[in-house]
């Protein structure tokens, strides 16, 4: 037992005394999440303009909404009054809405000139929205304006339009679970596979084996150290995202932790397998890149793998990294119960065990 404790101690020290580990294991993922998260979360304010026309016999609900909720500013367009309201949405970032109060004739003019993209008018039948459905900007403006107005007005709030506020629909929400999964894979493949190959090629393993050291202890210490480190890395990334991006973990932390363990075990076993034979660092690096790069591209770390052709889907879906990331994503974004992710956890665990056994069978210590 003292052997094992010492081995773990040495492995951890060897790891944390490497400045590269802090940089690549912790700093890099956080920076990348930060950069990509910002780049795709459309932080700049979108200006969206809509005309409001109040016809005869209307209930004045549009006008009332504008007068009660927005702020009047100077209008540069003749015969109109301009009102402003800024609203934060999850899906579309920050939006500043311009409401132009206008007559029907002026409103159409504004639409033609491109000053507004949506025309909302109200008469005795209720509110009517007009816009060019092929214009995406118009669609979004309609979407936002309508939900703002209708959510505000009880009498029209028949079908609440509220998808914008649903959590977990932003790019960062998609990205973070992907990065956690990728981190687990990279941490194992470089931390276990590469390290074993390097130590084998430098004849360090050979030296260790010329003692009564237990081989299983050595492997265990290596796997354990990586899990420990991977746990810290993932925790920091998730904590950062929760704080900075207000990422919501909808599922249970237990499910998340078990998936983390299963994923780690899957890639630990896989690492032992890939590291089982070669004595050459160059070949080892090649093998590791050859298995990690395709998964990084295909398994949906940065974008959805549903964009790949249909025929590739069955293959992609059963890559270990895909299973891991899909499960992490479901837990974080959708909040399923433990039972409904248990199948994936089991698959990962079995995959790891099979790789581990196969790897040990053909393992060359020197």
């Amino acid at each position, binding site marked *: 037992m*003292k*052997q094992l*404790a*010492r*081995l773990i*101690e*040495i492995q951890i*020290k*060897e790891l944390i*005394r*490497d400045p590269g580990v802090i940089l690549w294991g912790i700093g890099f993922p956080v920076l990348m999440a930060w950069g990509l998260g910002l780049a795709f979360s459309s932080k700049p304010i979108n200006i969206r303009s809509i005309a409001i026309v109040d016809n005869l016999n209307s209930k004045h609900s549009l006008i009332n909404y504008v007068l009660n909720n927005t702020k009047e500013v100077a209008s540069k367009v003749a015969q109109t009054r301009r009102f402003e309201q800024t609203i934060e949405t999850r899906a579309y970032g920050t939006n500043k809405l311009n409401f132009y109060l206008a007559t029907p004739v002026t409103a159409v003019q504004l639409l033609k000139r491109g000053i507004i993209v949506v025309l909302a008018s109200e008469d005795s039948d209720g509110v009517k929205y007009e816009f060019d459905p092929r214009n995406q900007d118009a669609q979004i403006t309609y979407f936002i304006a309508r939900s703002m107005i209708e959510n505000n007005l009880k009498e029209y709030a028949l079908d609440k339009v509220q998808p914008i506020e649903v959590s977990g629909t932003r790019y960062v929400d998609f990205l973070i679970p992907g990065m956690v999964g990728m981190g687990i894979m990279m941490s194992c493949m470089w931390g276990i596979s590469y390290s074993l190959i390097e130590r084998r090629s*430098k*004849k*360090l393993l*050979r*030296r*260790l*084996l*010329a*003692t*009564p*050291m237990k081989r299983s202890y050595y492997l265990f210490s290596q796997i354990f150290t990586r899990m420990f480190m991977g746990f810290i890395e993932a925790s920091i990334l998730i904590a950062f995202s929760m704080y900075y991006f207000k990422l919501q973990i909808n599922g249970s932390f237990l499910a998340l932790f078990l998936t983390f363990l299963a994923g780690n075990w899957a890639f630990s076993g896989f690492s032992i397998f890939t590291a089982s034979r070669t004595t050459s660092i160059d070949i080892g690096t090649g093998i590791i890149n050859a298995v990690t790069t395709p998964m990084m591209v295909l398994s949906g770390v940065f974008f959805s793998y549903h964009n790949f052709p249909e025929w590739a889907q069955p293959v992609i879906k059963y890559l270990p990294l895909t299973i891991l990331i899909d499960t992490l994503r479901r837990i974080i974004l959708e909040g399923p119960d433990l039972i409904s992710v248990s199948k994936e956890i089991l698959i990962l665990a079995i995959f790891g065990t099979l790789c581990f056994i196969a790897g040990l069978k053909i393992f060359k210590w*020197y």
Partner: protein
Amino acid sequence: MKNNCLVCAEDIRKTFKDVQALKGVNLSVAQGEFVAILGPNGAGKTTFVEIIEGIQTPDKGSIYIKGFTWKKDAREIHKLMGLSLQETIFFERITTLETLRLFASFFNLDENRVQRILDMVTLRDKAQARTAHLSGGQRQKLALGISILNDPEVLILDEPTTGLDPAARREIWNILNDLKMKGKTSLILTTHYMDEANFLCDRIIMMDKGTIIKEGSPAQLLKESGKANLDELFIYLTGRGLGDETVSKTY
């Protein structure tokens, strides 16, 4: 135990692809005896000692260590053997002291032993230095420290002073000499320095091209051959000096 020999190697043969590294080598080492295996690069020294150490397996021949065989009693042999490899690599970011502690844990040894060794190999002032920052001589002393941690009955050192300056070599010799005085350890040492073999060992085994070409005590060898010194004897026997290579490639 076979006729009183602590380490017995019988007719060891080993071939790598096209190189016959060992062509039937015999060796027996008695308790407390210091034996040098002397030969130029490529003579087969490393292959031979690694077979004794159980790191490589011979194509033919058998090894008995205190009557144990590698096949059946690896754990027993590990406990009574200490060794250092020709190339000495440690965990880079681990200190001297931590390295010794790690190896001590493999043998179930306590902190006292670690501290003793630190003094024996005179590395106390380097205890907190990372192994990557040690000089060549300090690394060899650490390797030696590790090899004698378990107070081995059989110590096997593969070129422990190659590449070191005279002062550092002298330090290693002193440590080994102290060990010899105690008389509990048998040593098999490979070297291509004649003076080292002469100074440290009771018996010199001259090896070239995978065979033993001459063996005996330094005095015996000189007397029998009638040469002025051992270097000359080696040149006389092989037609080459010890610094030369037997094969074109270095290993």
